[in-house]
């Protein structure tokens, strides 16, 4: 077993990406994710990798697009306002079926908003961040360990399904330190490049030219690519949903939360159970694909749901859809960078009765 080290969430993402064979990072400074760039700036030159501070978020995501086209594992990271700028490039990545990792350490919005933690990009990320009919894989870690583990998972899924993957966390997760065990086994960048016959890395006059492209001027062709892509999404939805069930065995009430608020909710659940309320939690780990089945199943036995979010109630709508509005759903939300205290969540749980 590898030794545990103490790392910030942002640093764990960066180190895990390197160990997953990523040698190309393109980014632009924005709080609260700048540690990722700083870590990469320090490490990449020493391991023959590329750290490039781009002129803008727009340029950074397009550099990722270029790098991903060659088959190498490429990544960028930003926070909410920066992700708005990257949306164009993310749409092109999706349209060209390119794998890549985008990290969004969310802060409060809209507009310039604030720099404190938020989950207000939930809709923006899970509905496909950009123009057109598409999705990106969205993973929501709730510990520094998961931030490291899911970085590698994001690259793997992204390549398996030929679509961009996003690690969606918030300022608290990025800034906090916890013990983390990093994978000892490192993937070499060249190994990560294998089995990508579509990559544009020079024909070497041995094959017809490859084209990385998202333009289809003939509507029937464009329709076909969209349908094919959604068949892949259907496979992803069938095979890759991930969630955690916490104290759900005997639960009469179900808290729904991800990331930092799931951590707060665990404290609240323990307290509510002390007060005699049988409450558990379903924590979606993949936000897209949303683990709808877990909720449909839970709806058969719990009396009510409570979503705890750092937004005005966005994931709530996914839960409503998942359970076909069959049970009441309450909310416990804080926004603008505020985080509900465990006491607040406990009170909201007690109110469910």
């Amino acid at each position, binding site marked *: 077993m590898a030794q545990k080290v103490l790392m910030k969430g942002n640093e764990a993402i960066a180190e895990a990406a390197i160990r997953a064979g990523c040698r*190309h990072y393109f980014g632009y400074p924005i709080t609260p994710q700048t540690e990722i760039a700083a870590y990469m700036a320090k490490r990449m030159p020493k391991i023959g990798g*590329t750290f490039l501070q781009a002129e803008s978020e727009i340029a950074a995501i*397009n550099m990722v*697009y*270029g790098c991903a086209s060659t088959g190498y594992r490429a990544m960028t990271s930003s926070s909410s306002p920066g992700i708005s700028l990257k949306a164009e490039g993310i749409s092109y990545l999706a349209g060209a079926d390119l794998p890549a990792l985008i990290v969004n350490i969310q802060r409060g919005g809209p507009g310039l908003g604030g720099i404190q933690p938020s989950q207000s990009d939930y809709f923006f990320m899970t509905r496909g961040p950009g123009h057109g009919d598409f999705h990106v894989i969205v993973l929501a870690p709730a510990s520094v360990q998961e931030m490291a583990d899911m970085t590698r998972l994001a690259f793997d899924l992204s390549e398996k399904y030929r679509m961009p993957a996003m690690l969606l966390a918030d300022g608290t997760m990025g800034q906090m330190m916890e013990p983390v065990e990093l994978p000892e086994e490192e993937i070499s960048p060249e190994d990560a490049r294998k089995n990508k016959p579509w990559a544009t890395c*020079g024909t070497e006059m041995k094959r017809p*030219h490859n084209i990385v492209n998202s333009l289809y001027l003939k509507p029937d062709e464009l329709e076909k690519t969209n349908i094919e892509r959604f068949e892949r999404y259907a496979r992803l939805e069938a095979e890759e949903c991930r969630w955690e069930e916490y104290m759900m065995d005997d639960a009469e009430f179900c808290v729904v939360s991800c990331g930092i608020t799931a951590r707060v909710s665990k404290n609240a659940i323990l307290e509510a159970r002390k007060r005699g309320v049988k409450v558990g939690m379903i924590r979606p780990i993949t936000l897209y694909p949303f683990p709808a089945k877990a909720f449909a199943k839970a709806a058969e036995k719990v009396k009510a749901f409570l979503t705890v979010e750092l937004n005005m109630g966005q994931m709530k709508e996914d839960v409503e859809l998942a359970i076909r509005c069959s049970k009441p759903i309450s909310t416990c939300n804080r926004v603008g960078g505020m985080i509900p205290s465990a006491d607040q969540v406990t009170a909201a749980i007690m109110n469910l009765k």
Partner: protein
Amino acid sequence: MATVFEKPKSLTDAPLHYCPGCTHGIVHRLVAEAIDELGIEGKTIGIAPVGCSVMAYDYFACDMIEAAHGRAPAVATGVKRSLPNNVVFTYQGDGDLASIGLCETVSCACRGENITVIFINNAIYGMTGGQMAPTSLVGQVTQTSPYGRDAATQGLPIRISELLATLDAPAYIERVAVNNVANVRRAKKAVLKAFKTQVEGKGFSLVEVVSTCPTNWGLTPQKACQWVEEKMIPQYPLGCFRDKFAEAK
């Protein structure tokens, strides 16, 4: 029978979609000839823009990537940083390079990325049907300057080669035209030199090609070439604006 003329090998057999008399075909050929002459087709990756040459990815036989509008230099940067020993070029029009992608253009040149940019300046947006470009001439009538480009409200044309030549990093910048045989010959030399600059690892190279758009200019191909001579070249003087390598001699 002896072959006296043939298509460069690094162009595919796909028929070009460009309007009759458009000079894109000439420039495509010049790029392909340079690739052939340097024997680099197998290791070249081209980046197509958004604009008339959006489908350049079908015409060049090397690996090709289609970029978002204006982002080709950033995409090229991503490719070049991943494959530093390969040859990377972008092919961009004036709207793409000098308007929506100006930031990417300047920043890429400023970093001295070892890539080659082929810049088609025909003073108009062709693909979308003839709107004003950042390089449109004062008084030029387009769909979005129906009374002629008004300097007071629509500004003055941008000279990209001169602008980029103020930067320290670029290795080679030259403006050429393809409106007559002599100019095409000079353009061929410039394109070849730009690719050579990259192959030799010398840094950022850009060739601005003053081109035509007979369709949207509302001129015959012949008149369009004349218009280049009479109107465009006085605004966009031909010549070399940066040759770091020559300066070092």
